[in-house]
């Protein structure tokens, strides 16, 4: 085909997607940086330079939400990876067809959206836990989601329920790629299952750790639906995560310029997390 015609087809194939990405993601990002330099309330806007960013430094609720989200992400990432790997190890043992059933069940919560998961667990924490407390007299089950601590752990538990099955799937696919001969060789050398795991499988799982770690981390930072449905930031904004803080600033307090400066900072944080993952996984691949 002639060069010119070929070029025409090339662009006809590529341009629609590029336009969609441009108008939906890139243009808003660029305009957003502009908005973050104004005092926009959604209707009128005056340029105020870096004032929004200066204000962020002393915004107690924003800093609190950021810190709450970091703590949440830290705890959730560790637990989800431990549980996800545990589940993966259970379903990859030689236990016959039942392993498929286990897999199906463990993954199921991941298919349900954050809003619905949050409501399901709101009932469980608020009503079912209260029922258990009455029946058993255990004060542990009292007043869940009514204070910051139980709100925090409530969010962790639901996120764990949602994400562990997903992380399990990632670990399964990496476990399946470990050559069988390696395990066999270990057995011949007299390794038991415990040693085979820690000394042969575990080191081979390094790339899976990086992928899962950063995937959970990025997802933990972006949580909104679950937060809204489970606690809605209550009590008194003490369980308000960073995404919800941005949303509320923009759509309840109508400070769109200010909210957008938070959104820009949020973008930088998530981008650093994701880029670190790319960087580390690439380097690991070279090592192997």
């Amino acid at each position, binding site marked *: *085909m002639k060069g010119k015609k070929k070029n025409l*087809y090339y662009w*006809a*194939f*590529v341009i629609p*997607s*590029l336009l*969609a*990405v441009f*108008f*939906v*993601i890139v*243009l*808003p*990002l660029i*305009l*957003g940086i502009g908005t973050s330099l104004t005092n926009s309330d*959604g209707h009128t806007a005056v340029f105020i330079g870096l004032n929004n960013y200066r204000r962020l430094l002393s915004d107690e609720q924003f800093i609190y939400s950021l810190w709450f989200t970091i703590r949440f992400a830290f705890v959730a990432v560790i637990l989800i990876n431990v549980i996800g790997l545990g589940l993966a190890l*259970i379903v990859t043992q030689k*236990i016959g067809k*039942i*392993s498929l*059933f*286990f*897999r199906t*069940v*463990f*993954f*199921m919560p*991941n*298919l*349900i*959206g*954050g*809003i*619905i998961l949050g*409501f*399901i667990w709101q*009932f469980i924490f608020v*009503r*079912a836990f209260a*029922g*258990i407390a009455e029946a058993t007299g255990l004060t542990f089950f009292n007043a869940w989601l009514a204070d910051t601590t139980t709100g925090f752990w409530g969010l962790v538990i639901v996120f764990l329920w949602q994400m562990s099955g997903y992380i399990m*799937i*990632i670990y*399964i696919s990496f476990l399946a790629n470990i050559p069988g001969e390696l395990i066999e060789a270990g057995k011949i050398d007299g390794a038991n299952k415990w040693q085979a795991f820690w000394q042969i499988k575990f080191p081979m799982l390094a790339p899976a750790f990086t992928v899962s770690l950063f995937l959970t981390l*990025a997802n933990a930072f*972006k949580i*909104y639906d679950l937060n*809204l*449905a489970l606690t809605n930031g209550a009590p008194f904004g003490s369980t308000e995560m960073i995404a919800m803080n941005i*949303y509320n600033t*923009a759509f309840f307090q109508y400070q*769109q310029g200010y909210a*957008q400066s938070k*959104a820009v900072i*949020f*973008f930088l944080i998530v*981008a650093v997390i*994701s880029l670190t993952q790319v960087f580390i996984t690439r380097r690991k691949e070279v090592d192997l």
Partner: protein
Amino acid sequence: MTREKTHKWLVIILGVMITVSWIYPFFIIFFGSLKSRAEIFTNTIWIPETFVPENYSRAYEGLEYGRSFLNSLFITTSSIIIIVIFSSMAAYALARNKSKISTAIYFFCALTMLIPFQSVMIPLVSIFGQIDFLNRFGLIIMNWGFASSMSIFLYYGAMRSISVSLDEAAYLDGGTPFQIFWRVIFPILRPTTVTVVILNAIRLWNDFLLPSLVINQEGMRTIPLRMYYFFGEYTVQWELALAGLVLAIVPIIVLYIFIQRYIVEGVTKGAVKT
């Protein structure tokens, strides 16, 4: 041998215990959805003593279930059709024309994947609002924009294992690139299309934040949106809220049981390859 067997049974028992605790929350919701308002307070986590199936007809009406379901279905399927058509075409062109421009486009798409939704939502809604392009069709375009990069990557990865000689043979038979793509290449990309459809379907069907910002007409609300307002109205009437939740979950679980192999495969590919 007996050691192996004990090990096997210990693992199975552990698995069963986790399974029970894993799905028990669903049962609590299901049992609750069949109870009377009074019984939910006296018997919260066990099988109902008296069944109240009317909760379901009331929740069905309250959620405007038929309508919400169709709204969700319309938005999810139309978005996915557009995503599949244009992402596969773009990936084909990028994979078959190795040039600096293609590499630049590829990296451009990779970079946009780093941008979280919340950091563009405010200007996005304001832009689309100004040109009066919100609600269903605006939402479909936005879904397309957000899904493009990941879908292009998945198709691009699959293109690498499809030999160029196929294109060349079809070209000698006198096809335009358009015909070659749709008649020869796209059918071979089928497994990837399944992955792209599944990954996007899970996300779009459950999406809440974007539709909540874009859809401003009550009659167009999707299931998660309806559920949100319904739950707000009925938290004092738990039995209705719970029946509504069951109605929202059932289609997903039924579909999952039928095509779970494809879903698990699709999710694996999506997680490991992008």
